[in-house]
């Protein structure tokens, strides 16, 4: 069987080397590009992100990223956001008192973790995944590698509308509960770095690739 074709979105975000290699190791045919045709055609699109929310959003916008990501989502085509690539899917990010708009795929704000814990939240933490997620299948009890100082700390999505499949939200805790991952139809995202989370992270990427 041919390997699923995955594009890692190239918009100048930090170290994407590891994401590319890890996805290859997990069984994908990976291309690092910003070419719009490739972004649209790929079986899966990965949106990495390192640094400040506003800077990542600016860099994405500079290549018209939100439009192409949005178009994929509208077409039911899988997208995986990682770290700040997860955060920018929410409505807004507030860092150092500066608010920036995100893509608004989900309600909620990215805000500073509580100041009574060690920050950045850096290291291997546990998650609480709901039943039946694709990403955490078989690795629900593993730890994943987080590096961040900001997070979405509430889930305001109206999950009571029966005609809509409720997104599956996975939580973690550091000073406060925060969203570690979301699965919502074609759109998935993780606050942690699966590409740096050893065997557990590799399995998560494989789970995603196998779903493409």
């Amino acid at each position, binding site marked *: 069987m041919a390997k699923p074709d995955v594009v890692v979105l190239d918009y100048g975000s930090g170290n994407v080397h590891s994401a590319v290699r890890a996805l290859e190791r997990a069984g994908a045919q990976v291309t690092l590009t910003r070419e719009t045709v490739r972004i649209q055609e790929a079986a899966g699109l990965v949106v990495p992100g*390192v*640094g400040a929310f506003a800077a990542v959003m600016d860099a994405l916008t500079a290549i018209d990223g939100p439009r192409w990501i949005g178009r994929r989502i509208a077409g039911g085509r899988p997208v995986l956001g990682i770290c700040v690539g997860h955060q920018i899917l929410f409505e807004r990010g507030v860092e150092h008192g500066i608010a920036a708009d995100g893509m608004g795929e989900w309600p909620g704000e990215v805000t500073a973790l509580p100041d009574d814990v060690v920050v950045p939240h*850096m*290291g*291997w*933490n546990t998650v609480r995944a709901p039943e039946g997620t694709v990403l955490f299948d078989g690795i629900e009890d593993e*730890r994943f590698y*987080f590096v*961040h100082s900001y997070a979405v700390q509430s889930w305001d999505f109206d999950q009571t509308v029966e005609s809509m499949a409720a997104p599956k939200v996975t939580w973690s805790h550091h000073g406060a509960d925060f969203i570690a991952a979301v699965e919502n139809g074609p759109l998935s995202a993780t606050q942690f770095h699966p590409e740096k989370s050893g065997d557990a992270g590799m399995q998560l990427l494989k789970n995603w690739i196998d779903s493409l």
Partner: protein
Amino acid sequence: MSLAVRVIPCLDVDAGRVVKGVNFENLRDAGDPVELAHRYNDAGADELTFLDVTASSSDRETTYDVVTRTAEEVFIPLTVGGGVRTQEDVATLLRSGADKASINTAAVNRPEVIDEITDRFGSQVLVLSLDARRTDDPQIASGFEVTTHGGRRGTGIDAISWCREASARGVGEILLNSIDADGTQAGFDVEMIRAVRQVTSVPLIASGGAGRPEHFPAAIDAGADAVLAASMFHFGPVDMIARVKEAIRAAGHPVR
């Protein structure tokens, strides 16, 4: 459940080879950093640190290549230190595949470089590494002094003030190495760890003095979020990382 204490082996790399010696059995080539990185990853290391002890710039290129090859094969966080002076050095390391860079002497000489690096790449990429020793110098209030040149040269800078300043400037993590404890295998300098913990809220990695797994819980009780060691892992039995983690777990701290 909470964040696990990280156990981090440190490898000294010179011209693309691990130096200081490593005593693993069944290793084809004990000097190959990539092979050792694999070994430590398989043994349960939570992160890896390469310390580039290379002097020449051509050898530095070799280090970048080692970083790239490691990052292609080992999927845990990789920190690289040694010779990091400017934001361009950090850019090169990140491009090579490092997740974090550690800075030491260059930050002592010119603290502003911390702001420059973290403004560009974010706090999470920069580890402040410092070698501190105890001193009787009345000018140094805390009794802990920052040194350079592997502890041979004093700077007259108070290590605790320095940690406070570096945190305020934006470093994402502090690697605290005790020169007095380093090499003694008699245990960590827990007073120093405690003193640094009081002035910073960024993650703190304790280094220097570990000789036995039982030494580690004290460093964590004193406020360390992670522990780093070299010889103990290089010369200990293959399962030393597991033994260290077991000692940490037995003391009531979470490990992976």
